[in-house]
Structures are given as C-alpha cells and as structure tokens.
C-alpha cells in the first residue's frame, strides 16, 4: 500500500487494532524541491599527488539526477523501543567507515551503541579520524595507510557526530549513534527503508547535514511542519510507504 501523507498514515492506523507482535516497514523517497545546486569542487591540496587526482566534490548535499536527496538520516526517537528478534544480531555486525580516495565512504554511517565501528584506510596515504561525538568520549586516532582502528560507543547521540580528517581538511563524514537498530540513511536515489519496526505509534526524527533537522516536508503533496525534525507516525503491520517526500531547496541554502 501507498499512503499519501503522514496524516493519512495516522488516520488509517487509528482504526486498525495493532497487536503486540506485529512489525512494519517504513519507507519513502526524499526529493529535492527546486533546482539542485551544483556540488562545489573541493581543493585537495594536501597530498596532492594522491588526493588531487580524484576530482573530489563537496558531499554536503548530494542530489541525484532524478532529484533524489541522498544522506538524509531517519531514526526512531523513542527510548526502549521493542526490537524485532531478527534485528537484535545486527549489533554484532561491524559498521565500517573507509578512508578511500581521500574521502570517507560512506558519507553517513549508522552505528548502534555497543556495535563495533571500524574506521579503515584503503588509501596509500595516512589519515586521522577525528570523531566529534558529544556524549561519548571524543576520539582522534591516526589511521595508517591500509590500517584500521575500531571503536564502540556507549551512549546514543541526539545529533549525528561529524568525523573529519585534520590532515586533509576537506574530508568530512557523519556517524549516527543510536541505541536501537531503527535508523536509515537515504540512498543516492533518495529512498530509505527501515524494516521490522514494532507496530504502533513511534516518533521519528529526520536530519540532513546541510539542512539540520528537517523542519518541514511535503508528503504526498501536503505540506507538513515537523518541529525539530520530529514526526509521530503510526506504523502498521506490513509496509508503510510515505511515497515522495519533497524537501524545499531553501532549507539547504546556508
């Protein structure tokens, strides 16, 4: 099924009796409202013989050819949310951030508290990874060429934390630290999906590097205000598709 708007999702679900053991998927696709600006070229002037050849561009705002907005973060804000048995094991899978071609890959990584977080370096030059978490201890480790370092976070973070490299100042990425498995980062085509959510009302939060917490969005043609990027949604068993979520280009002009 496909719902027109947040409101429609809510309306429909109010009449549904949700049993405790039902799980749903939330999906949608972020679209840039307006003409997307050209990504600025980055000046890779440190280790130029290695980094200079990659034609790096700013990844602050990545908009696909069809207007999809990548790297929008969606996560569940509720504390102590019930976790689907299939999702519990995800905590043991390594989350990886690579230093590759003098940029970070991926640009935004999601890590759960307690999950091993590996920062590796596939480049032939050394990097350092300065992780600017607020609640967790701030780390800044040397990552040698072809080396790696592993960290874990004890506490969840209310906002994504920046990761930078002090040697190559144009490099920037983000880590989203939550204490449950329910978060997603939109793909290059703007789509996202969070599987196996407990059915019922949940509060979601929407964030983007350039726009900050998304204060508004047009979902299914209807403009919605979302104070501090928060939105309560009723999740039904099965698929919950928000469809196209248009983000006004103005929010990204800072």
């Amino acid at each position, binding site marked *: 099924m496909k719902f027109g708007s947040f409101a429609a999702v809510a309306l429909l679900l109010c009449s549904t009796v949700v049993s405790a053991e039902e799980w749903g998927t939330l999906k949608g696709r972020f679209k840039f409202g307006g003409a997307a600006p050209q990504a600025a070229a980055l000046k890779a002037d440190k280790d130029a013989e290695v980094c200079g050849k990659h034609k790096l561009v700013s990844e602050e705002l990545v908009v696909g050819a069809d207007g999809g907005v990548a790297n929008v973060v969606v996560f569940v804000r509720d504390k102590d949310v019930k976790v689907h048995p299939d999702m519990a094991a995800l905590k043991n899978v390594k989350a990886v951030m690579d230093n590759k071609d003098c940029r970070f890959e991926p640009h935004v990584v999601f890590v759960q508290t307690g999950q091993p977080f590996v920062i590796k370096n596939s480049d032939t030059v050394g990097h350092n990874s300065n992780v600017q978490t607020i609640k967790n201890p701030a780390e800044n480790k040397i990552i040698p060429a072809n080396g790696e370092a592993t960290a874990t976070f004890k506490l969840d973070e209310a906002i994504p934390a920046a990761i930078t490299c*002090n040697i190559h100042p144009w490099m920037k990425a983000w880590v989203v630290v939550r204490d449950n498995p329910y978060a997603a980062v939109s793909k290059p085509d703007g789509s996202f999906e969070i599987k196996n959510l407990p059915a019922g009302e949940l509060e979601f939060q929407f964030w983007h590097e350039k726009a900050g917490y998304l204060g508004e969005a047009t979902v299914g043609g209807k403009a919605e205000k979302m104070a501090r990027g928060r939105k309560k949604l009723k999740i039904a068993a099965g698929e919950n598709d928000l469809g196209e979520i248009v983000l006004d280009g103005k929010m990204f002009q800072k």
Partner: protein
Amino acid sequence: MTKAMSKHTSTQPVSVRPVLSLHVAASLGLLVTVLAVGCGPTPAASFRTNMVMAAKQRLTTDQERQVATIVEAMFGTPDEPVALPETGLDEAKLLLAAGPVRSDIVGRKNGLYREHCVHCHGITGDGLGPTAAFLNPYPRDYRPGVFKFKSTERADKPTHADLKRILHNGIVGTSMPSFALLGDAQVDALVEYVKYLSMRGETEIKLMQAYFELDDDAQGKLPETREFLVDEVLAGVAEKWKSAADAAIPVPEMPADIDLAASIAKGKELFHGDKANCVKCHGVTALGDGQANDYDDWNKAIVDFGREIAGSREQAAKTSTAEMSPDELAEHKATLAWLEKSRQVLDGDSLRPRTIPPRNLRQAVYRGGRRPLDLYYRIHAGIHGAPMPAAKGTIPPEEIWHIVNYIRSLPYEFDGELGADRSMVASGR
C-alpha cells in the same frame, strides 16, 4: 582587538540575572544557601552565562534564565561557591581560592583565583579575562571540560596531580605562567577551583544541550527534579573527574639497553612514514609547517558557528516576505531576531578565532613538559582539543619510544640535514 576589549567593559548582549527558584534549590536541598545569596554589602560578583552555547542551541530567554537559575543553585556564585557532595569537591579549598582577594586570618590569603588567574581565564573560567585577547594561544576556556596536557587518555580528565604540575611548571612557550612560588596548599586550592569552574561550565553546557532532547509535552522546560539535575547531569560530569585517576596511560619503561642511535633512526623513519603520519602536520622539516591552518576545538566552534550565522543571514536577507502567511512571517522574524542575537553574542562573547600551528619540533619547547614521559603521553594520546591525533592502538609502545627519542634529537640535529629547507631554519620558524 578593540572588539574584544570593549566587550569586557560593556554589558552582555543579554544579561541573565537569575533569581534563585526555591523549587530548584529545594530539589537540590539548598535552602540555606538560597537565603544567603545576595546579602553582601558590595555588589556580588557573578558568573557569565555561556551565551555562545545558548545562541547555538537557540534557547529562549526563559530557557537561558532556567539554566542560570539551576546552575547558580548547584554551584553558587564566584563569592560564595557551593559544592554539592556529588561533585566530590572540597568546599574548604574552594573557599580559599574563591571570592575577592582578602585575608581574614593572619598569614592566610583568600581569593587566590582572582589574584592570580582571573585576568587571563576570566571569572567564569571561560578564557575571556581582560588580557585574553592579546595572547596567543588564548587562555584556556575550562567550560567544555577539555584539557590538553595530562597523563590520562585523550578524552579523559586530567588527574589532580596533572593540574598541579601545570600550575607548578606553567606552560612553556605560552603566556601561562608558573606558580611554583605559591605554597602547596594554595596550588591545591587553585586546582580544586579550576575543577569547580570546569564542572560548572560543563554542567551548564549539558543543561543547554538537554533542551533539544526534551519531549514535546515538556513544553521547552527542563525537569527540575533531583533525578535529572543531580543524578543524571551533574553526576555525569563529576564522574569523569572522579575516574580520572583510573584513566592513566600505561607506559612501559623504555628498554634500558636501548641503542639510542638505532632508536632515533627508527623514530625518524616512523615520523616520516605513512603509518605515523607526523610529517603531514609537523612538516618534513619538523618545523611545524605541514597542515598549519587548522583550529583547535574552542576556536573551531566559533569559526563554524560564525559561518552558519553568516550564511543564514545572507540567505534571510534574500528571502522575500511578500507571499508569507502570518505564521511563516512570524517564524521568519523569529529567525531574524535569533540571527541578530547570535551575531551580537559572537561579537561580544568570543575572541577572534586563531589557528593552531603544529609545534615546531626543532626548538625543544614542549608545552606539556619536556620529560621523555611527557612526550610519550602526547604521542600516545594526541592532544585533546587540538588537531594532533592519538597514536594509541596503531603504533606499539616501543615504536612510540623510538619516536620520542627522535623528537628529542631534533633540536640537535645538524641543520644541514634539512637540505633545501635550510633557509626556513634560519627564519626561525
């Protein structure tokens, strides 16, 4: 300069004079203190609210006032400090360091902080004393709770002994003087007071950040309960100070039979290699001329916020209000007011950002101490708050010792070895 100077004579852009709420104080068990505040004959000295953080978190005036009230209930005032048991601070020591300079018992002097530190570090410990703008690096702002030169892991607090050492030695190569001439009891009291100011500042920051996480039904107000204020926020800050002693960096002894020349050679290779990366910042010459336009965390926070505000102001100026609904117009105006306030706050409550160059390692001036052990700590843990990263985990201890030996040999290395870069040595960088 002029901008930075005028700020200290003018009033703050938004002055927040808290009136202690009985509710907050009661939840902290502080009724007596509440009644005592503000009874002195002279105008009481007051702490400055962290306006940059308040602006960054976009707090309302009511929220600023709530934070100021809570923080004053927890920590008192510069003249009458309070140390709740959860802080683990010794109130008797604080009283020696706090307040105006005075002597009530023959041979004992009070008000040490205001006598020795305030003109640089400021009454709030925000690094905004009247002399601060003229110094490079700027005096430390203790409020984020970040300290550089210590025997503990990067993100941990310094130990009491670390801070005493700093006061005893000063920070060579900066304006931070040595206080070796003060008696041990006085240095002890000053260290306690630095911790107090740091805990106060960090608690204030945590409270300001907490608004963001409030649920909607809290209506923008922090819960004034003991559980939240003391058990969660204050204890969280204090705990890190208490556990500092357990966070000591393990340092294996440098092998006694080490071949120094071979060790230096290995250190040199590591320093210049892709594993340790030191050259990227300190330069192939080790003169500190690699990546030299970076900021430390304190200055970077101002740079980043300044950019955000400038960008948003530019954007707002271009926005047409013609087609806005009344609601949108009200929101737009609120944003403009916030941007203007933020601009004023940055102007009045921060210093012009300065870059932090990597150290010139040919001068044998080490801010965190010149013992081989000090250099080991710096390389193992990096320098918290500065771009210098930690070797911990990637470079094994014996290799760190090789690098230490190489660093220590650098000032004596024949400058001809610099080859083409020789002229830079002459220029004294």
